[in-house]
């Protein structure tokens, strides 16, 4: 058995307990006419009561296919099929502008219609490989449909990411305990980097915000037990840091320069990222004038009307990494944009100090921002507060 209470090594793993050894899930074989990642994506984005996880190849005793679980206790297979078709319809409608998806959408639904019995209820171990991903998708859906949905941040891969702003943290932490959260002290001293509009520091609050970032990753772990067999467990790997969010769209920066009476010609030499179909084109501002900006990009040169920039969303953003951009930002938008690095250095000083902060963070989010219990069909999972010891 895995011991979580004694041992030499403390790891940032929170054990996930469960009240039944087996989980009933709805299983769907990989469809021929319908790409499985689309089905999974449709369920996770649009289904009200279910979440899904894809297993493209057989893994241990789990067969390949789409695994679906309900957040509302057990439901019928027919209900799952109906909800699946509805979500696929919504999913394909949302992507009608994308080439080929409408036709494929019709094919997907037709294939499901042809054999409604394709959804089957099967039993898998409550700590099986796919369960980690089902729990992650469930937690994401729970947060998305709660009043806290704005705290979710984008992260590539299997991690769930939360951004907690100063104001939100103040609602969670009682006055007498606020000293334990470094961001609150930081924001007291640098309020312009935490959303407060201060005279002379308008650029900081408009384009930057420092937040607490907590990431959660559900991890499936297998370990040999003393009888020579394998025990499977699920853990949540939790990490904590601080992040400066930047939103340096070129149009907004130009508007800001106008509002402060600064010549937009000062943008000359600043590097700009342009989102294109194949990735990102890197451009340099060659000439910025009243109504247009001339860019020299790696792929081509272009002149963009300011009016077009207004409607281009975040297609053109200043790349702050280059020296010229950096100098421009620090001179005309916000000085000391890297102050949050001191915060990071403070909590990541060494493992001992980090775990002290992490323990506080776990107490802060569990049961407050995210539920400590997640129900999938017939099983109640509970994320515990104590870190694993090995």
């Amino acid at each position, binding site marked *: 058995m*895995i011991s979580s209470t004694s*041992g*030499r*090594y*403390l*790891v*940032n*793993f929170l054990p996930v307990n469960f009240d039944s050894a087996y989980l009933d899930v709805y299983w769907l074989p990989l469809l021929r006419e319908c*790409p499985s990642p689309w089905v999974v994506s449709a369920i996770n984005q649009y289904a009200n009561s279910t979440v899904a996880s894809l297993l493209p190849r057989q893994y241990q005793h789990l067969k390949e296919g789409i695994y679906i679980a309900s957040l509302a206790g057990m439901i019928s297979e027919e209900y799952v099929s109906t909800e699946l078709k509805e979500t696929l319809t919504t999913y394909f409608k949302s992507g009608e502008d994308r080439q*080929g998806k409408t036709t494929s959408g019709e094919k997907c639904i037709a294939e499901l219609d042809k054999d409604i019995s394709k959804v089957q209820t099967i039993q898998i171990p409550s700590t099986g490989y796919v369960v980690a991903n089902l729990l992650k998708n469930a937690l994401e859906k729970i947060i998305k449909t709660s009043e806290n949905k704005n705290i979710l941040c984008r992260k590539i891969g299997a991690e769930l990411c939360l951004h907690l702003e100063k104001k939100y943290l103040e609602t969670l932490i009682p006055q007498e305990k606020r000293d334990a959260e470094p961001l609150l002290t930081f924001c007291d001293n640098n309020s312009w980097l935490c959303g407060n509009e201060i005279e002379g520091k308008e650029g900081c609050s408009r384009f930057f915000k420092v937040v607490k970032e907590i*990431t959660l*990753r559900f991890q*499936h*772990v*297998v*370990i040999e037990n003393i009888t020579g067999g*394998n025990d499977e467990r699920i*853990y949540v*790997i939790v*990490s904590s840091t601080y992040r400066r969010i930047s939103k340096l769209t070129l149009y907004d920066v130009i508007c800001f320069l106008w509002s402060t009476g600064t010549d937009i010609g000062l943008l000359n030499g600043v590097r700009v990222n342009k989102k294109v179909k*194949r*990735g*990102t*084109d*890197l451009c340099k501002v060659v000439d910025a004038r009243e109504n247009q900006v001339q860019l020299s990009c*790696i*792929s081509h040169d272009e002149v963009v009307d300011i009016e077009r920039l207004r409607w281009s969303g975040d297609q053109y953003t200043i790349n702050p*990494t*280059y*020296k010229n951009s950096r100098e421009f930002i620090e001179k005309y938008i916000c000085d000391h944009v890297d102050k949050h690095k001191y915060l990071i*250095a403070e909590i*990541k*000083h*060494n*493992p*001992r100090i*980090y*775990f002290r902060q*992490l323990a506080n963070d776990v107490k802060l989010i569990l049961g407050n921002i995210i539920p400590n219990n997640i129900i999938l069909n017939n099983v109640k999972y509970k994320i515990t507060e104590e870190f*694993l*010891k*090995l």
Partner: protein
Amino acid sequence: MKYLTTFNINNFRLRFGSGTHVHPYYITSLGPLNNKIAKSYKTILVLYNNNLDITTKNEVKMLTEHLKNGYDDKRIFPGFNAIYRTNVDIEPVSFDPSGYDRPEKIYESFKSTCSNVEKCFPVIVLPRVHRGLYDSIYYRTKAEFLEHGITSQIFTTDLLKDKKNYVWSLLPTSIQMFTKMGGIPYILEPGIKEFLDIQVFIIGLGISYHPLNKEQRIGYVMMFDQLGNWEFLEAGSIAVENTDIESDKNVDTLADRVASLLNTAIARLANKIQAKHAVLIIHYSGKEISSKEENAIAKALQELKLSQKILAVYVLKINKSNIVINDLESQFEINGNETGYPQIGTVFKLKPDVYLLVTTGYFVTDRATKGNIWRGLPSNLIISRHKEMEKLNENIIKISDESLLASVFSLCRLNYASVQNPVSSEPITTRYSREIAWIALRLLGAKAMSKMEVFRTRMWFI
């Protein structure tokens, strides 16, 4: 997850010219392992912008003097020729101020000063730039020289002015220069000892995207023997159109290109196998690899045919991890305060075939407990053995997981960039994927990459 073992750095000693030691900086007294190729060099040119202010120009002269005759305290750096047993002349040469925008101007100065460029090695003084900038003067200059078959060393003006770090950078910089000149500073003392008649080769396999065009990728295969002896690098363009993202076609095309690279490398390796048989251990980095590239690697390996010489191919995927370990019994204290840093080389088993290897923390030598980190969180690697990708001849004695993990730890020890640090956070097989890709991408236009012997035989990317 459970504790498995700890690789002790004292059991992974380095072999120099006249002895072995745990620490790379002993090269100053024990000399390099092999200086045969580097000895053919006649001159090292320290190239600097003619527009630099007089103080910086004097600092360039100081750098030249230190490389030539050593630092004041000879224990820190006794001089290039003294360490590497070479006989090169070292002198400063200025280049046109436009060189910062046009690296070809820097090369022109280099070429006009050297009667035979193959016998000259350039140390180029440039302003410090962010390594994450594809379009920077750093990558453009390195590519410009490499296109002409010349490896180079960049030294930043910022480092010239940072007196404390400057002093300690002299030795590691010289090791990099020597390596790029074709020398072998040191290798590992023990290798994988499970076989008698079998040579083990360790391959770094990588696929990296063009940062500005995701349809353009570079694939590379680099080869070391089990002692960390550098063999060669093969790299090539992998351009695949992402027009139909749902199609398996581009995975097949990717797989074909990866297979072609692997086959070229293995064919080249055939001449280097001296034992009766050989075994390959592939390290590939998960850094820039999506499931598409991973499927392509798996398919490429399926196509790989084992010869009578090569009996097995093992595959390890290496990822940096966000798992943090707090060692409650850590022996490493700083200013009397407990740190929680774990011992370097500690291995945990996460699940079957998946391991966690600690690469920063503390280590114990015969004299004291030291650390390769003083502030910040320790880093570690997740190493996954991909058995489904492996190819094993049924008659072969299988390599244990612990030996496979040791191949990663060994190549973390092979650090030619920072001599104070006995273990890098990543093995040399996967550490330089970006440098290789970004410079190779610039050479694609020259269309001569495959013909460049220097590109394939020197560690120009460190």
